[in-house]
């Protein structure tokens, strides 16, 4: 998978190298240590701006775009107090919305955006991201070492992870005879769970259970494999209650469903009779990240903002309120142990998470998954 990915990037990398040469010829900056560690990853990111570590942040203002409820409501006041920078928060409903905005070609005025890892990768390939200047983000040291091993961006060259997690089966311990252990338990459920199973319909997660049950990569581009995945998903459809990305939690609580495909942070495993399992065939690893936009005119403040977010107390807010794991060791250590014990997403260790396969952007091949989702949904 990584081989083909890098091959696809070669032209971009060559162009980037040329630009980098041009910049360094004009008395550019020292090489980014992360960049030199992984020569294949930087692509367009090599053209980084010269930033002033002593810039007066009170003269800069920040605009960020983030999912609703993903940062504290008081964030603008907190940032104003800490960094002396005005912060304007705009919201996006999903990755697609912010991607459409950022790639529209017009100046959005945004400085920092929260996007999932594979989208950060795509933005970087499109040359829209400013590489992260680690010297301006000392709190990067708080991150787990594993957080630098994420395959869409090894070494956090152009993105900083904010939350991470995986996908598994959330189920009712009282309504199932044996707890599920495999994706096949979801795809061909036991008698007591027939018509009481939900799966997600968002393309990549719709495919995930079948892909893993068949032992393929979540980033497969092979038409043959996708055809097999489709077959398996269609075979599973008669046993499903519904496709559901948003209300599976309530369906499980009410007992309308007994087994659902769920993101770890969405499974109310703290409640009686509900538990979560990562199937033995493995799963994905999703990461939501923060990126600095190349078009930003406030890059120093943007870095200071990311650094502020990585502060254990601030980052810990995300773990305690969104209930997703955060890749910040210091922050995870601060999380209330009682809460931790009740949420599988907060118990996941980084090494466990890294066994999951990161979803990466498939570029033009992503239409294959769109088609797959339409085909599965349209089939009667």
């Amino acid at each position: 998978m990584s081989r083909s990915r890098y091959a696809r990037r070669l032209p971009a990398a060559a162009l980037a190298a040329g630009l980098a040469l041009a910049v360094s010829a004009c008395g550019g900056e020292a090489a980014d240590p992360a960049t030199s560690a992984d020569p294949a990853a930087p692509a367009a990111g090599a053209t980084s701006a010269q930033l002033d570590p002593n810039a007066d942040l009170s003269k800069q203002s920040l605009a960020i775009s983030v999912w609703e409820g993903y940062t504290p409501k008081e964030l603008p006041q907190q940032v104003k107090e800490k960094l002396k920078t005005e912060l304007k928060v705009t919201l996006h409903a999903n990755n697609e919305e912010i991607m459409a905005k950022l790639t529209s070609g017009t100046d959005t005025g945004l400085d920092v955006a929260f996007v999932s890892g594979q989208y950060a990768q795509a933005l970087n390939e499109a040359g829209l991201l400013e590489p992260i200047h680690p010297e301006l983000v000392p709190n990067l040291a708080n991150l787990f070492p594993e957080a630098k091993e994420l395959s869409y961006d090894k070494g956090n060259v152009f993105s900083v992870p904010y939350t991470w997690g995986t996908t598994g089966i959330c189920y009712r311990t009282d309504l199932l005879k044996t707890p599920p252990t495999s994706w096949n338990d979801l795809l061909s459920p036991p008698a007591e769970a027939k018509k009481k199973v939900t799966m997600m319909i968002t393309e990549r997660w719709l495919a995930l259970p079948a892909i893993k049950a068949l032992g393929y990569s979540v980033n497969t581009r092979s038409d043959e494999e996708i055809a097999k995945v489709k077959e398996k998903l269609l075979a599973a459809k008669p046993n499903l209650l519904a496709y559901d990305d948003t209300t599976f939690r309530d369906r499980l609580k009410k007992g309308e469903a007994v087994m659902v495909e769920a993101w770890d942070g969405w499974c109310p495993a703290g409640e009686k009779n509900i538990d979560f399992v990562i199937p033995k065939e493995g799963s994905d690893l999703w990461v939501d990240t923060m990126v600095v936009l190349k078009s930003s005119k406030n890059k120093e403040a943007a870095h200071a903002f990311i650094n502020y977010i990585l502060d254990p107390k601030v980052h810990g807010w995300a773990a305690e309120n969104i209930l997703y794991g955060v890749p910040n060791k210091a922050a995870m250590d601060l999380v209330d142990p009682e809460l931790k014990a009740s949420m599988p997403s907060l118990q996941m260790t980084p090494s466990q998470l890294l066994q999951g396969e990161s979803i990466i952007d498939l570029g033009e091949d992503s239409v294959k998954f769109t088609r797959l989702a339409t085909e599965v949904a349209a089939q009667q």
Partner: protein
Amino acid sequence: MTRSTVSGATAAPRSRRSRAPGRTAAGRSAVGRLVFLGPGLAYLIVLLLVPLALVLSYTIFRRGRFGGVVYEATGENFTRLLDPLYLDVIVGSLKLASIATVIALLVGYPTAYLIAQLPRKWKTIALVAIVLPFWTNFLVRIYAWIVLLSGPGLVNSTLGDLGLGPFEFLYNQGTIVTGLVYSYLPLMVLPLYAAIEKLDPQLREASANLGARPARTFVSVTLPLTLPGVVTGCLFVFVPSFGNFIIPELLGGGRSIMVGNLIRDQFLKARDWPFGSTLALALLAVLVVLLLLQAWSARRA
């Protein structure tokens, strides 16, 4: 009545123009017309015509990788439309919307007929009752159906007390049709009521006097005269049903999709605006044909 609902917008200014006397007065009234028509025209142009033109123009371009449009002319969106995958969804939506329309007509016609026969006071009450559901948010009402019909829902728990069930009512094409009929039935009843109410009762009496039985009177007199109302009502139910995407998602459990879902997904998930626009164009084409049919039947009436 049917004419006024659909073609009233164009008819009104025409009649006003014919009334305008003299030259200077006409000039003055042109300014007046502009002032009064301005907001409406601006609304139509900015919020209807411009977006429509955009959507139409997108159909001949290529998809940008992250959404948006690459301005390279191509015909591939239209060839994709003929792909059995999408054709089947369009045909399936036509089918579901047609079934919903027929059921709404079968339920709506007797309802409208009876309301038209009620004494004046009860008429108002009945009409208010028909419109009443619109006072509650559409989504809330759809969720109410889920609460009613789901596995552990109200209907099943009641049946359970009687020793029946549980039944799986939800998440199939039947529930989609139920949802569509429920949501748009008022739009069927109201134009039918207007058409039936307008009908001169003497015509029916004349038919009876000439020896026709009630059934014959209905088929030969009442039905033909209310046909424009029938067509309008059918159109009012069919159009929003055909493009609906909320009901298939919530009451259909996402297990079947309609063309509305397809368009929504092309824009929001697949980031393929050109193909989404092409699908929207196909939907519009079907609706234009139906509107022409309606206009034709209204003229005949």
